[in-house]
Structure formats: C-alpha cells, structure tokens
C-alpha cells in the first residue's frame, strides 16, 4: 500500500484522465458497479457517495458534485468496502483518501470538534491538546523500568511507538502500563521516544488532512533518525498502519509490528508467565486495522485462548464482518456531527452485539475502541454487565499472582 507521496508514482488526480494516467487509477475504473461496497458500509444508508457512486459520478464527468458534498465525513475508513469488493479494488487505500482530501480542502466549515483535534495535533503532537512535555508522564507509574531515549540514547532493539490516546488518556495509560509489564516480563530490550514522539497522524490523513500527516511524518522520521533501533513495535492500531504502510515510502526502513501480533509470536514464552485464572467469558472485537486491513484475525484469538480460565465467544459479526467502532477517518472527533445528522454512533451498534453474546469482557486491540466502547456501555446502561479491556491488559492481568485483587 502506498500513500500520497509514493516514490514510484505520483498520486492519481480525481479526474478520468488523471486516473487513467496511473495504474492504481486504472484499476479503480474497472469497478463493475455491483454496489457491494454501499451494502457493506456501516453508514451506507446515509453516505450519499459510496465508492460505487463516486466511480459512477467520475465516469459521468460529475465528480465536482461529490467533492462539494460533506457526506464523506461519514466514511470512517473501516476497510469494509475494500475487503468485500469482488474486484479487490483498493477503495480505502487509494480512492477514498484521494476523494476525502479534496473534499476536506473544500469544506466551508470543518466541524468544530474535528477542527480542534487537528489544530491540537499540529501544535501539540496529540489531538487532546496536552503539552508534548507530558507525553511520557505515564512512565513514572509504569511499575517497571521504561527507558526514554532522550534521556538514554544508547542503541535499543525495539522502539516502542506509544501513540497519543495510549500516552495521555487514563485508560490508554492502563494499556501502556500493561504493555510495559509484558515487554519487561519477556525480557525485551525496548525504549520509548517520550515527549519527542508525535502523533503518527493516520486518522488525520484519512480525514483528508494530508498536509498535517506530511508534517507529522517529517517530524517523527527526524526523531527516529537520532536513534539506533532494530524495529518498531506500536500499541496504536492506526499508528501501525501509518508506520508499516506509509512511512517506508518516506524513508523508514525498520520493520514495524503491532503489539498484539508481536505478543502472539512470543506466546510460548508468555504462557509460563500466566499465573492467574481469569474466569472471564470474552468476546473479541476485530479492529478494522488489524483485521480487515492487515488480515490479523487469529493472532489476538491465539492470545485470548491461551489465557487461563478464559472462554472465547464470537459476536455475530466477527473477523472480516466486524462492525467498526466509528473512530477512524476522523470519526473519533465527529460524533457531534454524526448526531446532528441524526445518526447513532457505530460503537453503540457494536456494543449491543457484544452484550448479546453474554460475555463479561469485550476485548479490543485499538486504543480508540476502549474509550468509544466504554462510552457506549455507559450510554446504553450496560456498564455493570460488561467491561472493555485491551488484549494486552488481559495478558498483564493473567501475569499477576493468583492472590492479587
């Protein structure tokens, strides 16, 4: 997958000629107009221009109408359309980012919450608007040693790219502490960038703010260049997509892995460390990034099945059919906009399905999902029935001594 600044080919323009001039564009134009994309889109009933229609409008010379609409703000880049397209067109990878970028540039009014998130990300390196200096504040409470490269710049094996929600949000910090604990228990040689790290910007990119993405990429690559490391492991699902799929075209050579498959590879070393019987029934929500986009359906399940006393049950829509939490593509900061158009949050839809399984725990592997699903549980009144835990939090919990509360 390549993004807007591919070294091999300039991005196609959104005109028929522009698309015909590039190989990726020509592929998109082989659409057979079957409508599977619109049918599988979680916001398909309100999205005025699903991929089928965008391509149809292009062919009719009516693309301007698409670019003048704000309807694509509903696209949460969940990769459903791309995963189901019978022609395998790279809709979420190529078409949608192009269209969303053009639309974003023309929006007369960017919804206030999204605007704030983007402005904060540019200025502070995180959408929450917290001081960059506080990005490593969680390290003090990690409970295990966590090396910060600016303080100790020696070469390291794993650069752990923490990401914004994990670093600043209280529930994200729970994830950090758990991740640090598991990495430490595995004897991994790891370090973090601390306050030098900036948002990987994947959601900004997929909301259409490619300029912001470029700025963040430049800054992060410059910081990477200061240190010596073998590979990058990240807790952020969207950060994983950016680092693994976009950054190489900008010069990143190191291999990149998300923490969930990373820990799955180390399962034989982890198993002896699981001391506590958890006694939970767990249902796993496949994140759009790890699941549909990168095909990692089994790795999180391997981890969950290995936990003592855990029974795994599946939701009706699982794996490739998983229902997005609604946080991608800018959706994390568009709930007020969605509400103003009379739409329910996708997370609410998903949580109802989770609760219907009867499970105690909704396991996730993307930091956005934790806060979005916990919100939904509260809103729907299910907070006593079910809790949300990142897979790594469950790993860390299983490593506690059996007597621990």
């Amino acid at each position: 997958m390549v993004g807007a600044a591919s070294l091999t080919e300039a991005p196609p323009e959104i005109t028929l000629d522009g698309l015909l001039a590039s190989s990726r564009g020509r592929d998109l134009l082989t659409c057979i107009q079957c409508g599977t994309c619109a049918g599988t889109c979680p916001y398909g009933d309100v999205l005025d221009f699903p991929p089928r229609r965008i391509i149809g409008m292009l062919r009719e010379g009516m693309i301007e109408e698409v670019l003048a609409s704000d309807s694509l703000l509903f696209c949460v880049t969940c990769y459903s359309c791309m995963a189901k397209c019978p022609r395998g067109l790279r809709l979420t990878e190529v078409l949608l980012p192009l269209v969303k970028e053009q639309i974003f540039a023309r929006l007369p009014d960017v919804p206030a919450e999204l605007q704030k998130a983007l402005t904060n990300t540019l200025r502070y390196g995180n959408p929450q608007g917290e001081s960059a200096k506080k990005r490593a504040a969680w390290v003090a409470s990690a409970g295990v040693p966590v090396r910060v490269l600016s303080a100790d710049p020696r070469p390291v094996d794993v650069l752990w790219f923490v990401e914004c929600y994990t670093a600043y949000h209280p529930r994200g910090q729970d994830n950090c502490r758990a991740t640090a604990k598991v990495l430490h228990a595995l004897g991994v040689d790891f370090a973090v960038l601390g306050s030098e790290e900036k948002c990987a910007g994947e959601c900004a990119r997929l909301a259409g703010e490619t300029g912001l993405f470029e700025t963040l990429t430049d800054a992060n690559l410059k910081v990477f260049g200061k240190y010596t490391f073998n590979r990058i492991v990240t807790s952020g699902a969207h950060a994983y997509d950016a680092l693994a799929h976009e950054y190489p075209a900008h010069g990143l050579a190191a291999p990149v892995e998300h923490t969930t498959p990373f820990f799955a590879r180390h399962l034989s070393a982890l198993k002896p460390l699981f001391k506590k019987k958890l006694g939970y029934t767990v249902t796993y929500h496949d994140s759009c990034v790890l699941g549909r986009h990168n095909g990692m359906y089994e790795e999180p399940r391997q981890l969950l099945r290995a936990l003592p006393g855990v029974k795994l049950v599946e939701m009706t829509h699982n794996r490739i059919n998983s229902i997005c939490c609604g946080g991608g593509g800018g959706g994390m900061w568009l709930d007020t906009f969605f509400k103003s158009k009379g739409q329910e949050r996708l997370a609410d839809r998903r949580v109802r399905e989770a609760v219907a399984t009867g499970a105690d725990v909704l396991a996730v592997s993307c930091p956005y999902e934790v806060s979005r699903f916990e919100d939904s549980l509260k809103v729907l009144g299910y907070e006593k029935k079910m809790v949300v835990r990142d897979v790594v939090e469950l790993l860390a919990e299983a490593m506690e001594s059996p007597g621990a509360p």
Partner: protein
Amino acid sequence: MAGNIWVLAEHWRGRLSDLTPELLTLGRELAGGLGGGTKLEAVLLGHGAQGLAAALAADGVLSVDHAALAEPNPEASCIALAALIEQRKPQAILVPLSNVAADLIGLLPARLKIALVNFCRDVRVVDGRLEARCVLYGGKLEATVTVASAPAVIGVLPGSRPASAAPSAAPPVTEVPVELPGDLRVRFEAYVDPEPGDVDVTKQDVLVSVGRGIQTQDNISLAEELAEALGGAVSASRPVIDQGWLPLTRQVGKSGATVKPKLYLAAGISGAPEHVEGMKGAALIVAVNTDPQAPIFSVAHYGYAGDVLEFLPALTAAVKARKA
C-alpha cells in the same frame, strides 16, 4: 499633596453593579492607608442616575450628568473621566473589570498618558505607595506591582474585598459639568436582549456547569441528567458557549451571568478569572477537573481531580439512590 482615591461607580440599566460596593471597601482601605486627609470619592457617570449616589459608601460623589452617558458609551465616558481627572488629579481611580467599564481600562490611561495596573485582585498601601497583586496568563502567575506614578488607573477584579454596606447618611453629591462633543463617533442605539423562553441561570439554586473538560456536545447530556436529578439547570463557561453547544444565556462569567446559587458544580472548568468572577459567590462550590493544579480548586470548597465524564453519571446515580 497626593490626591484622593476614586472609585468608578459602575451601574447598568438602572442598578449599581455588584463590583461597586467591593471597590468602595477597597478604596476606603487605601484612602485610610495613605492617610494625610486622603478622601474616598465615587465617580458617577450617567444621565439622571443621581438616585444611586445614596447607596455609595464614599466621602463624596462626583456626578457627571449628560444625555450621552445614559447608556455605556466608551467615547463619552473617556472624555468625561479624562476631564475630571485632569481637573482634580486623584491619586488613583479604581475601575471595575466588567464589560460595562472594560473599554475605559484601555482608553483612559492612553488618553492621559498615565499608568494602568490591570487584573488586580488586591491593592494595598506599602511604604506610602500603592502596591497591587495582579493576575496574569489566565491565572497561572501573579505579579506584585508598585504603582509609582499618579494619577493611576487601577483595574480591579471581582472578589478583592467584601461589599461595603450602604452608608447610613447619603454622601454629598457634587455635580461636575463636562463638555462633550455634539458629534460623538460612537453612539449607543439599543439593547438586543436574548430570546425569552430559555433558562435564567441567575435564578437557579443549583447549577451544573460545564467547561472544556466536557469534551463534546454529546456529553452535556451527562450534566443535564445530574442537573435534573438535583432540580437545577446546566450552565457553561465561555469556551462551551463559543462552540455553540449551549445558548448564550447559559454562559457564566465575565461575559455572561454572575450567579450565586446554593450549589455550583464546576465540571471540567479550569477556573480562569473570567469564569470565576461569575460564580465565586456561590454558597457551595464543588469542582471536578483532571488537573489538580487547576485554578478552580482555589475557589472551590470541595474538589476532585478526576474525570468529569466518569464523575457526573456516578453522582447522578448516587443522588438518585438517596431519593429511592
């Protein structure tokens, strides 16, 4: 010989503002501290507003009556006040920091080329001179400032002193004639009042007030549920109003309403002076903010350094449980 201490007696739409008696308490203290016969004089600019003079706890009232001063007019007020100051040379004039007098804070010292000390939360006499403690950078730092020249304009924040009681005997009123140009370049036309039918936050016993910490318009429903459980209403600080998440009438603070409810619950409000000004008179203030250093905790009676989004539903549940 040093001049007198003046207080600009602020009034609006027929009533003296809450700040005026506070400034008179402060002014009395300063005049006494300077000694040497320094008097406290109130300055009343208006049109037919002399009736308010009786409530002013000052040694005397200087009244400037002119049709152009019937409603707040920065141009007319500045010309009138500047003329008064040039004639009578007070040591200092205490000006309330409110929307009514705000423009004068900037205009007057520039016109007369005299000192301004702004954002004062306290003023004292130290070694025969006025020394002020001023709030800067949204409350994050304080500067202690010596006022080395006279006359000086001193901008005073609400809450510097308790309100003075009305005097037993009305102070003597001196009418001072002032020339104002016939062709003023700024003219008051009319007030535009907000739409009726919405909540009057100044009349509520309980306010659940939301600030930036509420994060999204959606989350305001958490505050509404709590407000309903407590029999009150939702108000907000300016940033929430600026976003358009609640109507202007719900705004508490310098540009909004001043409220004195029995309970003011500040949910995700940092406590910048402009906001605190509007609610510090509440009988019971409970504040919730993730930042334990937030200035709101200096004015609150009880505080919780936690997440508003978790606390609000928890309190709603606790309150409902008590009712059950």
